[in-house]
């Protein structure tokens, strides 16, 4: 990590500079410039297919933008030699519950840690995993199962647990409540709230009003691949911006 440049006075953790993404001659994101500061929670919201998931994938170092730069602690993730290495410091949770199908649940959880720190303390990590399993009321026996043998809801929670135990510097969580039942939603909401109180940096893509209001420090509204609003959460719900008013009325239920 000695390659990471001295942190700027602004405390920028992740920065997107004029990011655009084009696919099959269709401009899906256009000129997105954002800064995610350490210790804050950002909510990205949009109408369905508005580019939330795409933006998170680009910010997470997974999908190279057609134009623009993504900097993590001042290092360009896509254009600098050691940029790709820094992706492991970013914890991405996808909307779909993605697990490597030919590995057990335990192997799935440990895979990024093995890569991040080959000399990791197995007992300490597995204890943390078990505690998180208990917190989310997941049967410990699931650790030995293959992903195809566990429910969608459990898969989603395992994705979140996997990212939590790797202790990333920033969490990028796409649709946290997707595929979850009411009980799991409540537990996850409380966990996210706890993480916010601990000062974790999070970027959450969601249209859920409760998440936006109770977790978000700032809200970014995307429409047609562009930022239509970027403001504090309290200001978002009082905004006179027609795009925001229309969005609140139709997507987050006024």
């Amino acid at each position, binding site marked *: 990590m000695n390659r990471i440049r001295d942190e700027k006075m602004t405390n920028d953790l992740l920065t997107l500079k004029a990011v655009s993404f084009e696919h099959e001659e269709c401009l899906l994101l256009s000129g997105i410039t954002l800064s995610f500061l350490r210790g804050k929670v950002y909510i990205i919201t949009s109408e369905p297919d508005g580019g939330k998931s795409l933006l998170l994938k680009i910010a997470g*170092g*997974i999908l190279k933008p057609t134009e623009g730069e993504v900097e993590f602690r001042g290092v360009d993730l896509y254009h600098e030699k050691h940029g790709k290495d820094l992706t492991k410091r970013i914890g991405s949770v*996808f909307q779909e519950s993605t697990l490597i199908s030919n590995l057990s649940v335990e192997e799935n959880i440990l895979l*990024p840690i*093995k*890569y991040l720190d080959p000399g990791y303390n197995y007992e300490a990590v597995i204890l943390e995993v078990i505690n998180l399993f208990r917190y989310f009321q997941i049967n410990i026996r699931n650790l030995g199962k293959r992903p195809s043998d566990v429910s969608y809801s459990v898969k989603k929670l395992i994705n979140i647990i996997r990212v939590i135990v790797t202790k990333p510097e920033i969490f990028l969580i796409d649709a946290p409540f997707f595929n979850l039942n009411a009980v799991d939603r409540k537990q996850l909401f409380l966990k996210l709230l706890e993480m916010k109180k601990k000062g974790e940096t999070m970027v959450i893509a969601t249209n859920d009003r409760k998440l936006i209001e109770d977790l978000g420090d700032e809200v970014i509204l995307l429409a047609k691949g562009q930022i239509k609003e970027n403001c504090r959460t309290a200001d978002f719900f009082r905004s006179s911006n027609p795009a925001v008013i229309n969005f609140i009325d139709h997507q987050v239920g006024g």
Partner: protein
Amino acid sequence: MMKKQIERIGRNGYYNYLGLRDFLLFTRDVLSTLFNFYSQVQIGFSVIVKQVYFTGYEAKWLIIFVALAIGGVLILQGNIYLTAFGQTRMIYLLLVTVVVRELSSLLTAMIVIARSGTSISTELGNMVVNKEIDLLRSFGISPLSYLVVSRTAGVIAAMFILTIVFNVTAVLGGWFFSTLFYPLNIEVFISNFMAEITVSDIILSVIKSIVYGFSIALISSYHGLKVVKASTEVPQRTIKAVVYSITTVVIANGIITFVYYWLK
């Protein structure tokens, strides 16, 4: 009509050029990752072990069966014709030329294509569809290093071992079937065989096994990772992986054999 045909040929040629260029870039990336593999060996090593187990260990009985049959048929046919000309000793030269130099690595490659080439292509294709490749990228794990290079190393190692197993079994099979015609001490058979085989024959067989193993793993991985969206692409890409692997192995066999005799 003529103009349209020329346009079609030109378009196909251009797409083939783009495909070849893409594959060569992929090969370059795999080779450069291969040399930096030590940095991710802690997680890729288990993939190598699993690949050697599946490609090598689990294929052993099929290889032994085919090798025994080939060795036996060669001795059977050879004995009938060579004995008629009083050239029974030529049977050893036949074993070296046909089995060690050609068939051992070639038939092993065909079996590896059928078992491991198809499974690599299918598995990687399904991983793309299930977004598992994106997941690896999100951890900062290079899919080339974790999936392709480790599988390539595993297939090369397994091809190398299986080719040796094929050679040894075919020779022993040859001895066994010889005893059906006339009593023959195994020590005499082995010493006659060793008198015909040279170090260059063994090196040729080893080089072929390594080149074929590399080609099969590379082509199968390439086509698996070329799946974009739908699971229906997976069998299509697997078929391409098999066709291109067989073609490449046959062409490589011709080139290596030509170079061998040219150097000799």
